[in-house]
């Protein structure tokens, strides 16, 4: 039962990570690519690690993985924000509908 649940979580997480990678290729400019990677990677990673926690059961290793998940949910948006902020201050233009892709 728990293993099935873990399997579902891992597969959904893998799906989101693949979607993030495809978005990184398909989207037309830097700001929209950040949407794909920043969101999908964070949640996909969290879901995969949560599936591993369910597989592992209750012990100190799963608590450690839970700490890793919390760490990722705090730091990943921050790192994305730092990159976005530096690109914005350097004057990278956002893509508008109708422009050609960069």
């Amino acid at each position: 039962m728990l293993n099935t649940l873990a399997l579902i979580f891992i597969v959904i997480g893998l799906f989101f990570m693949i979607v993030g990678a495809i978005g990184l290729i398909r989207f037309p400019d830097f700001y929209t690519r950040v949407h794909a990677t920043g969101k999908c990677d964070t949640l996909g990673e969290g879901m995969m690690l949560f599936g591993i926690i369910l597989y592992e059961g209750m012990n100190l290793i799963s608590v450690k993985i839970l700490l890793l998940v919390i760490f990722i949910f705090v730091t990943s948006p921050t790192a994305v924000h730092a990159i976005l902020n530096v690109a914005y201050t350097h004057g990278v233009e956002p893509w508008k509908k109708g422009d050609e892709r960069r």
Partner: protein
Amino acid sequence: MKRSSVYQYILTFGILILFWYILSGYLEFFYIGAGVICCGIVTLISGDLVFRSDVSISRSARVFTRFVLYIPKLLVAILHANLDVAYRVLHPKMPIDPGIVTVDTSFQNDVLRTSFANAVTLTPGTVTVDVIDGRFIVHALVREAGEEDLLKERSIERDLARIFGEGGQPPSDETGDL
């Protein structure tokens, strides 16, 4: 930077000891003793970073509890946002119409600003680009939807303001984009 009170150092030390035990997992005398020494050193070096002296501990604890209770709702919102992004990535025509939205808030607290910015980055098709005092510059994947979420509904903003016990109403309601 004002100096923290003694209780804040003690609380930091306790949290760090718990963290050490989770990392180490040994309950022998040597490892616990080493943990006490190491956490003591870290508390002396950087014990004034985690808690601020101008916020009382009971208030921090209340805010933390309310935030933990809010996390499930946030996770549902994150899942919803991810499904939205996945739909837009996998759709053959890529229905996106990006633009920049400016949100004015009256947030004063640094932690409140940070959690609002990270929540915006994770949730509704928007990422925070810049924070200037209370003004958040946000890039939205679909501009109308982003304006709808952040400027009309303001659900995350109101929830976070209620959690941190600060007034969520902005001083002026003018909306403009850059």
